[in-house]
């Protein structure tokens, strides 16, 4: 809402010294938020004057354009009193028109400095201005032609154009629709300066002629949709009459565009009083006006030229010819005011806000009228607004008001709200007396009565948003002032701190960062292309994703089932920007459709039952928390210490093992084949105790690396964090360990190449028995010495007894038993 300060002041006697900034600040404190203050003087410097066109000679140019060589009387503004020669490219003016001229030395918005310059064979000493050039509107339909009474040549055009007047743009919240009018803004300004004695004069308070039977016939078929319809007719209207300067100026200041007197007047009154008005060419109406809901299949071409299929929820205005308008939203073409209209029917009707919202949304119509009607307009001002339109049309359009006055329907009175008298004080936390509470409510227009410890307030007609006791609290609080709310810390009881899961998740993040991984956050959207790049087979469960109805990009219509595509893209981006290697991780939820039906929409007048809630929450898709890691390129740098090392499959497993150790979870690792991993270098990781699948780690498939543009041999992990967290050890049992000396035995075993380290290690461990303290592989050898298809694995066995120093015989026997088990179970031979 853009409100010219001069217009606000017309309805509230603010002290003269109140600055625009101060006014805006106080209104912001009341809830009309300052968006911007527009001051044309900030961007235009003079001389900007009124001129009268003396001559206008069209001169066709070689480039096909025609320019006008003009002489303009600018009075004494040019210092000589001689006519000013100006070249003008616009054509929407004639000799004798009053125009706006900027003379050499002036500066227009955009730091556009004006000087006398030679162009098209003339010296053009200035410029005749359009509204766009002055920053008054976005578009230029030629130059500004001022009303004949706008001023005399040489007059300062700032005043004439209203450029001295600052305009405050407010952001109006949906509950303050009344402030979408000067009436509402001025009312708030009076509240803001009440202590300075400011009083409000209601522009809608005017004597209106009583309804009579001679008015244009109107029938309301749907009183819920249209409760009140006021119609007035002006005849003998001069369609060529121009809009007076103050109306054109104020409409422009408010951000609308002057069109014609009849249209401008309806817009002016809408801005002034807040009631959208529609004007019909009365001579094009046939038979009574009827308001009803549209029938299925009906259509209407609205005055924006769009042919619309109507919905049975749309309110339509009809006459005998059929539908003539989308009630409260937009009129139809056939009955529109035109350049030949001499008889104007003024409609001022009260429309159901919800219907207005739905129709606007359905037909994607966003208009100044719709914006007000869908938020709720003061129903009581219909007659006053119509009368004001009639007054302005007859004053400036030369017509007469026909005596017939149509008022059909009535508006319901607002329901009273009863609330404890101390509710505003209690809920706002401010010490507000009963008297101050009632005073504040009366100040915003409520009629308040007091009964014991309760108050009853009847909201004013312009406040359809006031319905609940808490609505009254906000009114009282803002009048007393939100800045008066004291600052008091609440005192909750002892809290339980972070949950175990929350603490462990932090620990996982720190562990990964400590391992040199950098956390990233990606958008969780994915498309089929990325799943193809991963090489997922057609029946892979990760291809069954939650689909969005309105995705950001049709290429990525799914909520992702895997964090890897986002991480791989980020990896490629970092490498592309010159990083020699990256290790990235991300934790985030993925989603799998539960296919458990629709989530119901319950009412809100009570809590849903436990069963209903269970059904609701069950319908929500499964969203496990995943962790993914990608390691690509250089993992350890080359340097003065020696060679660097690229990331490999083992780094991926190292990350998983480190996390598992951090959380005290024992895991099992075995080889598996799953996209996007290399089928020979992929590990499936499970929780040892339960066998629950944790996820996978290893080297990525060469095709996947290629598809995502990451180096060959890049490695990746994706695990289900919910599973890991569930397996985390709750209480670590105190470890027991011996301080007797350790006995060391190393063994090298020859086995077939397909025997795994884990198998051999298990056999050695089982064979060695209880004296074995630890076992660790320290060397792998393949080559000529061991023969093709064979490998040598060297283990360090460490023995220790809890109660004594082991003898060589004991240690040797344990080692031999270990080797024997390896021989038996894995076909090993000791080297």
């Amino acid at each position, binding site marked *: 809402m853009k409100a010219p300060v001069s217009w606000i002041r017309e309805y509230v006697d603010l002290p003269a010294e109140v600055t625009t900034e101060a006014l805006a600040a106080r209104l*912001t404190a009341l*809830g009309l*938020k300052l968006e911007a203050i527009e001051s044309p003087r900030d961007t235009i410097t003079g001389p900007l004057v009124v001129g009268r066109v003396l001559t206008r000679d069209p001169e066709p140019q070689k480039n096909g354009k025609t320019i006008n060589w003009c002489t303009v009387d600018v009075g004494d503004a040019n210092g000589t009193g001689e006519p000013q020669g100006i070249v003008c490219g616009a054509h929407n003016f004639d000799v004798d028109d009053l125009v706006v001229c900027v003379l050499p030395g002036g500066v227009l918005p955009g730091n556009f400095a004006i000087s006398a310059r030679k162009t098209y064979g003339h010296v053009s000493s200035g410029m005749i201005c359009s509204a766009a050039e002055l920053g008054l509107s976005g578009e230029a339909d030629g130059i500004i032609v001022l009303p004949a009474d706008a001023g005399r040549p040489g007059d300062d055009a700032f005043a004439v154009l209203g450029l001295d007047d600052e305009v405050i743009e407010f952001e109006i919240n*949906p*509950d303050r629709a009344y402030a979408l009018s000067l009436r509402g803004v001025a009312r708030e300004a009076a509240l803001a300066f009440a202590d300075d004695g400011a009083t409000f004069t209601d522009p809608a308070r005017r004597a209106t002629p009583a309804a009579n039977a001679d008015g244009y016939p109107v029938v309301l078929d749907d009183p819920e949709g249209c409760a009140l319809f006021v119609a007035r007719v002006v005849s003998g209207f001069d369609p060529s009459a121009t809009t007076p300067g103050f109306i054109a100026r104020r409409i422009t200041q408010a951000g609308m565009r002057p069109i014609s007197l009849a249209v401008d007047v309806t817009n002016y009154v809408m801005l002034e009083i807040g009631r959208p008005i529609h004007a019909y060419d009365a001579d094009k109406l046939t038979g009574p006006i009827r308001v009803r809901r549209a029938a299925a299949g009906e259509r209407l071409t609205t005055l924006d030229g769009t042919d619309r299929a109507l919905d049975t929820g749309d309110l339509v205005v009809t006459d005998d010819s059929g539908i003539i308008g989308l009630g409260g939203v937009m009129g139809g073409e056939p009955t529109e005011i035109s350049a030949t209209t001499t008889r104007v029917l003024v409609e001022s009707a009260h429309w159901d806000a919800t219907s207005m*919202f*739905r129709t606007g949304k359905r037909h994607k119509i966003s208009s100044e009228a719709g914006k007000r009607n869908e938020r709720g307009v003061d129903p009581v001002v219909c007659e006053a607004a119509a009368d004001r339109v009639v007054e302005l049309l007859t004053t400036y359009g030369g017509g007469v008001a026909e005596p017939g006055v149509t008022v059909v329907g009535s508006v319901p009175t607002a329901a009273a709200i009863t609330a404890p008298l101390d509710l505003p004080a*209690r*809920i706002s*936390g*401010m010490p507000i007396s009963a008297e101050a509470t009632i005073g504040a409510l009366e100040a915003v227009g409520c009629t308040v009565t007091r009964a014991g410890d309760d108050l009853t307030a009847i909201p004013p007609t312009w406040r359809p948003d006031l319905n*609940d*006791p*808490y609505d009254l*609290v906000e009114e009282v*609080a*803002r009048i007393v002032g*939100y*800045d008066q*709310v004291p600052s*008091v*810390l*609440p005192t*909750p*009881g002892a*809290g339980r*701190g972070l*949950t175990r899961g*929350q603490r462990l998740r932090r620990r996982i993040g720190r562990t990964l*960062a400590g391992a040199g991984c*950098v*956390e*990233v956050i*990606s*958008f969780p959207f994915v498309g089929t292309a990325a799943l193809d790049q991963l090489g997922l087979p057609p029946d892979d469960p990760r291809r069954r994703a*939650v689909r969005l*109805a309105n995705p*950001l990009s049709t290429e990525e219509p799914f*909520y992702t089932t895997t964090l890897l595509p986002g991480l791989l893209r*980020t990896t490629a981006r970092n490498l592309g*920007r010159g990083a020699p290697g990256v*290790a*990235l991780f991300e934790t985030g939820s993925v*989603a799998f459709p539960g296919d458990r*039906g*629709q*989530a119901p*929409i*319950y009412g*809100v*007048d*009570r*809590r*849903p039952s436990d069963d209903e809630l269970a059904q*609701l929450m069950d*319908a929500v*898709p499964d969203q496990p928390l995943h962790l993914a890691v990608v390691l690509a390129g250089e993992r*350890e*740098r080359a*340097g003065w210490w020696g060679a660097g090392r690229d990331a490999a499959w083992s780094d991926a497993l190292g990350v998983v093992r480190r996390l598992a150790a951090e959380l005290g979870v024992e895991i099992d690792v075995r080889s598996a084949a799953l996209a996007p991993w290399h089928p020979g270098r992929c590990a499936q990781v499970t929780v040892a105790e339960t066998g629950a699948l944790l996820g996978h780690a290893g080297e990525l498939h060469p095709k996947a690396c290629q598809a995502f543009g990451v180096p060959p041999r890049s490695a990746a992990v994706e695990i289900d964090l919910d599973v890991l967290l569930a397996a985390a050890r709750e209480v670590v049992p105190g470890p027991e360990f011996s301080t007797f000396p350790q006995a060391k035995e190393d063994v090298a075993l020859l086995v077939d190449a397909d025997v795994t380290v884990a198998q051999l290690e298990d056999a050695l461990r089982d064979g060695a028995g209880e004296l074995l303290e630890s076992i660790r592989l320290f060397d792998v050898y393949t080559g000529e010495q061991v023969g093709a298809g064979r490998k040598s694995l060297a283990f360090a066995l460490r023995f220790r007894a809890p109660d004594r120093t082991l003898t060589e015989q004991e240690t040797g026997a344990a080692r031999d038993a270990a080797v024997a088990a390896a021989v038996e179970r894995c076909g090993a031979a000791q080297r």
Partner: protein
Amino acid sequence: MSGPNTDYDPVEVTPLKSEEVESARDAALAAIADAADLETLKQVRIDHTGDRSPLALANREIGALPPQARKEAGQRIGKARGAVNQALAARTSVLEAEHEERMLVEETVDVTLPTDRTPPGARHPITTGSELIADIFVAMGWEVAEGPVIEAEWLNFDALNLGPDHPARTMQDTFWTDPQDNGIVLRTHTSPVQARTMLTRTPPIYVVCPGRVFRTDEYDATHSPVFHQVEGLAIDEGISMAHLKGTLDHFATSMFGEGITTRFRPSYFPFTEPSAEVDLVCFVCRGATVVDGTDGPVTCRTCRGEGWIEWGGCGVVNPRVLRACGVDSERYSGFAFGMGIDRTLMFRHGLEDLRDLFEGDVRFTTAFGTEI
């Protein structure tokens, strides 16, 4: 042993003669003093204190003396050997010190050599920022509540007094899952977590809900379709806007420093009544609207000269929300607030472009380390 004791004289054994002993001692002391390094000193030790050294040999001869002469000779030899050993020890310690000093000099390294064999890791500032916020509230006795990001429409809208006709419930604002009538959306705020908390717990409730939210915004320097919010909810007996103000003031001060408090402006949100926008004292100009420039005061860029920064929305929980979530609105009242985590971090850290948070450039994230 010396050669055959041909001129055996129990009283006058040559090696035990006073002058012989003194000469051997002096020779030893001279050799010790002359030893320039530990290696030479080692040889000196062998030569002068070893089994075949003059003093050792002389010592053996003591047994040959008549008992009455042994004492004196023993004393003489012992004294000489003591002097030699003492000198040896002293010289050893001097030479060892010299040796160590030299070694330390020789082993000097260039400590400016790089040590970045493994590049550093880091956690994302949104993660650590969320934790910082959570910790501020946990320290006050609050708890951290979480919920799914793909959420039931009823919990995201209806339960929060955003009725069927609320403008947010359109394809222009909200991501809907397919088919659109299945009642499942990507949550547009973390408020459904508040609804879930009220629906499943009994007051008093003090929870803070950080998390990821979605709106169909354009992706630019200040908007993102995916962003992060933190919301707070307190439900208790006697809760008022004053408690809201106190909580937010404490939050602001903890996050931005002493003196950084908040102000309320009336606003509108369906889930709160009264509602307020909460502004933060600009922590750069501290409300002064100007900062020192090279040529005098210049308008503060962070708050664009307003002295205040828009931080979020808040208010008293609308009793309609309490009713839908099963909280007795006669007995309990509550407050709620919400702000963007991304936005909060943007002005706390002076970030110019929101997209830096989601691009994943390791240079950006690494700058924040593992805590903020």
